[in-house]
């Protein structure tokens, strides 16, 4: 199979490997304020993407992302499956191909809107959105990949002191405070992997 863009394979591999490498940490975080499956869920999804990698990278960027998003929906399960699936599918639907910086900004915006609609949530509720929203803003503002990664790192750390009002952690009330949100951390890990790829590509 021919590859439409060699960067695509590298990107998918980098993201999947980063998530899988941090699976135990994600599960640990989810055990503290959730049900302890986030690492397993994400690993299942990333392995599905890796398993289909040859077929995915034969597609153009937007089709590849749509297909990868559908893989996440069908394999991850839990709350993060529909959310990350929706994120990636919408990215695919909205992205021009080959991607441009402006196109990416708009697509990211659309994708995060879709995640908010799917999960009926917004930033400030101690979820992945607390990383995704500032990241999207940083991208809109024209920040460099390294700067965006730094924004994600800070945003993730900031979820620690937040009170959860969405997701399983919300069932804990006050007891949710003092722990980093697992979905915020998985988002940050993915952003960081992407930023590194983009940085290298520069």
């Amino acid at each position, binding site marked *: 199979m021919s590859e439409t863009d060699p960067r695509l394979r590298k990107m998918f591999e980098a993201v999947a490997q980063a998530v899988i490498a941090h699976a135990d940490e994600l599960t640990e975080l989810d055990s503290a304020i959730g*049900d302890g*499956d986030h690492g397993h*869920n994400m690993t299942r999804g990333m392995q599905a993407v890796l398993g289909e990698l040859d077929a995915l990278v034969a597609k153009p960027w937007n089709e590849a992302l749509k297909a990868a998003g559908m893989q996440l929906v069908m394999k991850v399960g*839990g709350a993060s499956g529909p959310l990350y699936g929706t994120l990636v599918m919408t990215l695919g639907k909205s992205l021009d191909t080959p991607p441009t910086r402006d196109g990416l900004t708009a697509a990211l915006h659309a994708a995060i809107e879709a995640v908010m609609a799917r999960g009926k949530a917004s930033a400030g509720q101690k979820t992945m959105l607390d990383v995704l929203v500032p990241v999207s803003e940083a991208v809109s503002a024209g920040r460099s990949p390294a700067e965006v990664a730094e924004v994600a790192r800070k945003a993730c750390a900031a979820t620690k002191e937040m009170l959860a*009002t969405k*997701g399983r952690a919300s069932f*804990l009330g006050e007891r949710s405070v003092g722990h980093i949100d697992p979905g915020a951390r998985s988002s940050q890990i993915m952003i960081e992997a992407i930023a590194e790829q983009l940085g290298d590509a520069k």
Partner: protein
Amino acid sequence: MKKLINSVDTVLADSLNGFCRAHGDILVAGEELKFVRRKDLKAGKVALVSGGGSGHEPLHGGLVGHGMLDAACPGQVFTSPTPDQMLAAVEAVDTGAGVLFIVKNYEGDVMNFEMAAEMASGEVARVLTNDDVAVEDSLYTTGRRGVAGTLVVEKIVGAAAEEGRDLAALKALGDKVNARTRSMGVALTSCTVPAAGKPMFEIGEDEMEMGVGIHGEPGRRRVKLASADDIAAEMIGAILKDLGETARGEALLFVNGFGATPAMELYLMYDAAAKKAEAAGLSIARSLVGSYVTSLDMAGCSLTVTVLDDEMKALWDAPVHTAALRWGM
């Protein structure tokens, strides 16, 4: 971790295979174990489909059969099933009268069933269960969890579906049963997800978690171990307070074990809970005691009260034949 398993990767498949093998007279497994369905479907009947993370056995697979569910979709342990599972189940059991999803209120379950409903071609409605009073029901949060009361919804709506009621009527009935049902749980120990290999939380020999759900998540409060009477008083108190004016007349009292608590203790809790509920003026007309909505190997139990009316009582009594609940046939 001490479990009767072959390997952490095959727990779910091995267990589902055993389940379908043991109940092959009434159940068949869907392709790739995406769902479990009734062997004999009834044409023209609205199909009831439920599901959720595994680890709550016999819920939901054990509630598939005449008078209850048509299919159940088992997710990974404590993880919502994925939309392809629900789609495959709908495909297999929809005989044309539409499908009612019965979904426990967790964002994962809600969103996965929602995506399946969006993708399904036939008519689909949904009942969302949220009986857990341990979670404050606020406009600003996810709302209450669906826990053991889900079984009551499935039984009563299942009986009505068997009578031939249509999709809208069944949804309305499900919502009504849910509105008249409240639960609360207490855990004495944590549970161990096979893939994690260790308990989800540490807890002292003299402590308990009040207000737990069914996923090994911590409860609302960590408190000192109390007597069965005191535990029952707190839980029944919270349930009745939340039911408010609804809490009058006849009720079903359901004492549900979380997996590692034996019948001896469950019946003891039943005694304590029934006394409290009756002292508060309810008349316990129906009861159910056993481990039906579990949390793997967690020790502890939940109490569920459903305020009955004549229709609900008759539907509760209607014949049912599933792996876990069976009477009248």
